[in-house]
C-alpha cells in the first residue's frame, strides 16, 4: 500500500469537503474493495476519508412499499434483516451470498455500488428492482446509475447516502459463482414489479445490464419456461479462463430460468 492521509469524517458534508481539499481523496466505507485495491498498489489515494461510522448512512427501514437501506449498511445486516427478508426476500438472499461471511460483516451496499465491479451482486438487485440511488446531491434511478465497467453516474464530491428499493411482487436472484473468487460469473436478478418485469444480469458483461427479450417474455408469462429458449447475445460478454462468452450467455439463460422458478416458489 502507498502511504496516505487518513481522515474520519464526522458528517457527509465534512467528508465531501475533505475530498475536495485532497489531491486524490477516496471514501472508505467497508473497505472491502478499496483496501484490496490499495494493497495491490492499483489505487494511490492521497487521502482516505472514512465514512463508515456516519450515523446518517446507517440503517434499514421499510415503509410505504419501499425498502430503504443506508449506504454504509453492511451486507450481513441486509441479509439478516427481518424487515428486508419480509419485504424483499430476494434482496436479503442476494446480500447473504456476497463474498463470504467476513466480507459481509464489513462490506457495504454504498461501497459496492460506488465501485460497480462488473461481477458484483448488488448492481443486479438495484437494476433488477428498479431501485433509486440517493446521494448527498440527488436521486439517481438505477437505469441511469450504471455506466459500464467500474463506471457510475456519481460525480466528484458525490456520496451515496442510501438506496431505496420498491417492494416487488415477486423477485429472486440466482448466481453462478466464479469458482475461484466467488464473485458472480453470471448472476441474474428477476423481479415482477409494478412497472413490469425486470431482468438484470451481472457478471456476464462489462457491467450490469437488463435483458429486454427476457423481460418481454416474462411479462407475457412469468414462468421459467418463458425464458428457457431466450439466449442473450454473447457478443459483448466477458470471456476469461473461467467462462467463455458463449458459456456465459448460456448461463444467463439457465440462471434466469432458475431465478424465475425460485421467485415463483
Amino acid at each position, binding site marked *: 500500500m502507498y502511504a496516505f492521509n487518513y481522515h474520519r469524517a464526522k458528517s457527509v458534508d465534512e467528508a465531501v469537503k475533505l475530498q475536495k481539499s485532497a489531491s486524490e481523496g477516496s471514501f472508505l466505507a467497508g473497505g472491502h474493495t478499496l483496501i484490496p485495491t490499495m494493497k495491490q498498489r492499483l489505487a494511490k489515494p492521497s487521502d482516505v476519508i472514512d465514512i463508515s461510522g456516519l450515523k446518517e448512512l446507517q440503517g434499514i427501514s421499510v415503509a410505504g412499499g419501499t425498502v430503504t437501506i443506508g449506504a454504509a449498511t453492511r451486507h450481513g445486516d441486509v441479509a439478516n434483516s427481518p424487515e428486508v427478508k419480509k419485504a424483499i426476500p430476494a434482496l436479503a438472499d442476494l446480500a447473504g451470498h456476497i463474498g463470504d461471511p467476513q466480507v459481509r460483516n464489513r462490506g457495504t451496499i454504498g461501497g459496492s455500488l460506488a465501485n460497480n465491479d462488473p461481477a458484483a451482486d448488488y448492481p443486479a438487485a438495484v437494476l433488477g428492482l428498479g431501485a433509486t440511488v440517493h446521494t448527498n446531491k440527488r436521486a439517481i434511478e438505477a437505469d441511469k446509475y450504471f455506466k459500464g465497467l467500474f463506471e457510475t453516474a456519481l460525480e466528484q464530491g458525490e456520496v451515496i447516502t442510501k438506496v431505496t428499493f420498491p417492494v416487488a411482487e415477486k423477485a429472486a436472484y440466482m448466481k453462478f459463482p466464479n*469458482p475461484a473468487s466467488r464473485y458472480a460469473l453470471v448472476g441474474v436478478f428477476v423481479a415482477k414489479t409494478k412497472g413490469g418485469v425486470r431482468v438484470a444480469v451481472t457478471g456476464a458483461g462489462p457491467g450490469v445490464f437488463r435483458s429486454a427479450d427476457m423481460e418481454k417474455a416474462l411479462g407475457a408469462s412469468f414462468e421459467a419456461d418463458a425464458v428457457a429458449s431466450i439466449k442473450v447475445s454473447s457478443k459483448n460478454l466477458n470471456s476469461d*479462463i*473461467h467462462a467463455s462468452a458463449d*458459456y456465459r450467455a448460456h448461463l444467463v439463460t439457465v440462471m434466469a430460468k432458475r431465478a424465475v422458478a425460485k421467485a415463483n416458489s
Partner: protein
Amino acid sequence: MAASGIGVSVRRVEDFRFLTGRGNYTDDINRPNQLHAHILRSPHAHAKIKKIDASKALKGPGVAAVFTGADIEKDQIGGLPCGWLVTDRNGQPMVEPPHPVLVADRTRHVGDQVAVVIAETRAQARDAAELVKIDYDEQVATVGLADATKKGAPLVWDQAPGNICYDWALGDSAVVDAAFKTAAKVAKVDIVNNRLIPNAMEPRAAIGDYDLAKGNYNLYTTSQNPHVIRLLMSAYVLKVSEHKVRVYSPDVGGGFGSKIYHYAEEAIVCWASRKLGRPVKWTADRSESFMSDAHGRDHLTKAEIALDAGGKFLAMRVVTVANMGAYLSTFAPCIPTYLYALLLAGTYTTPAIFCEVKAIFTHTVPVDAYRGAGRPEATYVVERLVDEAARVTGLDVAEIRRRNFIPRDAFPYQTPVVVQYDSGDYQSTLEIALKTADYSGFAARRAESAKRGKLRGLGLSTYIEACGIAPSAVVGSVGARAGLYESGLVRVHPTGSVTILTGSHSHGQGHETTFAQLAAERLGVDFDKIEVVHGDTDKIPFGMGTYGSRSLAVGGSALVKAMDKIIAKGKKIAAHLLEAAEADIEFKDGTFSIAGTDKKKTLAEISGAAYVPHNYPINELEPGLEEQAFYDPTNFTFPGGCHVAEIEIDRDTGVVQLVSFVAVDDVGRVINPMIVEGQVHGGVAQGMGQALLEGCVYDQKTGQLVTGSYMDYTMPRASDLPTLKVSTHNTLCTHNPLGVKGVGEVGAIGSPAAIMNAVHNAVAPFGVTHVEMPATPERVWRALQSAPKAAE
C-alpha cells in the same frame, strides 16, 4: 503403555500451541535490528536485462541496499544446485543449466528474481522497489508444453536444442511392440496432467542473520528439510563451510513438496545479512508464492494398453512430455522419471511396459514435486487406461481390475518397471471399498439423480504408491546426488524422560505426537515424558527431511534403531545392577527384569545409573544413555488402496459436485489412526482440487501467469467436499522394523483418477469419452454440448 502407544488416536501434542496462536512460524520471528527485503521479479516471461538503475531507490527512505545479479556475480555466489542427474536413453547427462539466485542478463519466467531491495521496513522496501528502473528487452517466450519442442520455438537455454532437458526411456520397447501385435483389444488415452500450484497456506519466508562474532550464518526458513538446505546452500551457493551455517525451520505451515527445495531467497537473505551486518527478513506475499514456489505435475501423455480376449493386460506403452519450467528445481528431474515410470505397473500384472519421457524447458516457474510427485501422474495414466480398457472390452470396471490384480500370494512381486513390491492385498481393498460405497446400489442412485436432472457417475482407482524413496545406493546409481536415509537420536535423561531428535520435519504431519507414540510403546515411557525435536541443524545430528511420505518409514525406523540401541545398552546396565547375565535380561513396558524373576529395574533407574555411574560397569560401558542411528531402507514402501468417487453433474451448467468419496488404503502399520485419516482427508481434497478445480494457467502467448492469485486459482473449499469415508486395510511392510508404509500422499495419488473416472462414467451414456482435468463446469458443459448422442 497402550493408552498412548502404537495404534492409539492420541490427541496431538502440537495442537495447544497452534490453537492458542502460540505457534512459531518463520514470519512470527523477528531478529533484533532486522532489515526487510523485497524481491524485484521479472514481469516478463522472457527478457534480456539491458540495464538496472537503482540510484533513485537507494535514496528512498529507510533503504539500506539494492543488490542485483551483478553483485551476486561479483561475490561469486553460486547458483541453486539440482539434486538429481538424469541420464538420457543414449547415456548422455541431462542438460543442466545454471540457476542464479539473482539473474544478471536474462529473465526466464514471470517472477524470476532480478534484484533485492532492503530497507528498514517492509513497506519502505516495497516503496523503493518501484524506484528501481529496470530496462528490459522483452523476448518471445516458449510457454506451452505442446509447442515447446516445435521447430522455431524460442529456446529457454541455448544448450538445450528443442528445449529438451532429457529424453529418457524405461523398458523393452521390442517386447512391448510384440505384445501389442498379439492384442485382442487396445485401449488408448491422450491426457493432460494439469499443472498445479501447491499453495501451502503459509507463504514462504526466510530470515538471514549473520553472526559477525562467530562468523556463522543463521537461516530461519520455511523448509521441509533444513539439513538439505544447509548442505546445498553452504556447499554450492554461499560456498562457506557447512559447520558455519545453522538452518532452523520452526513451525512450518504446510509444504506439500513446495518447501523441499532450496530457494534463492534463502541464500539472498543470508548473503545480504553478512554484507549489511544486520539480519534480513523476507516474507512472500501470496502473489509472490504463485510465481516463485515450484509448481507441480504438468504432463502431456499418450498411453495405450494391450489386452487379450479375456481382458488381461498384456503390455503398456506410455509417452510423456513433462514440463521442467525454466530452471531445474532441486528434485525436478527425478519426478517424471523415477517417481513416475516406476509406478506404471500399478496394482496389476501387466508383464511388459515401455515408457519414454521427454523433459522440457519452458519460460515458466520451475516444476518439481508436489504431494504425490510423479505417482499421481502415473496413477492417472494407469487408472484412466484401465477404465478405457473396461469400456472397449465391455467389462465392468471392478471386474477388469480383479482380473489383473497382482494376487495377494504373489508378493514379493517383481514388476517390469524395476521396483519389487513387498506386500499388498489389492483385491481386498477393492472389495471393502465397493461394499462401503454400496457399489451394487449405484444404479438406483443414478436413477434418483436423473430424476433431479443430474448425471451421476461412479469411479474407481485402485492405485499403488512408492514411498520412502530408497535405498541410497540404488537411487545414487540412477542419479540422486544425495543419500536417502534418515537419522534419529534418542536421549534418555537421568530421570528417565526422553528427548527424540529426528531429521524428519513436521509441517502438519504431527510427528511430535506420532514419534512420541513410538517411543512410548518401545521404551515404555509415559507419553508426557517424551519430547520430539526437529527442524534445527544445530540440535539434530543430520537429516534428509520430510517428503515422499518418508518420515515414519525412514525417520521412524531410524528412531527404532536408536531405541533398540538404548535398550541394548540398558540391558547391559541392568545386568550389572541386578547381578545377572545380560542374556537373562528382558525389557518390557519400560522395565528391565531377570527373566522368570521379579528382580527388575525401571528405565529411569537404569538411566539414573548411566548418568550417575557410581555402581556401573564403567570398564565396559560409557556413561550416559543416548543413542543415535541412521537408517537406510532396503526398498521403497508400497502403500496402495482403492478410492471410489461418486459425482453429480448439473446438466444445465456442467458443474461437477463430488457427492461421495470412499478411501480404503493400505498404509502398513498405523501408529495414530486419527492422524492417518487426517492425512488421507487432506490428500483427497488436493486430489479433488486437481480433478475438478485447480489448474495453473499461463497466457500462451505472453507467458503471464493468469492464475496468479486466489481470484483466479481455484482452491478447494469446504463446500466443494462431502464427508469422506476413510478407512484402512493394511498389510505390513516387510522390510522396515515398524511395518509402516507411509500415508502422506495416498489421498492425492488415488483420488484424481477415481474422480475423473466418475466424471467419465457420468457422461458415458452420451458417448462422451474424454473430459480433461480439471473438469471445470465449462469443459463438462461443452463435452455434453458436443456429445455424439443423447442419453437414453
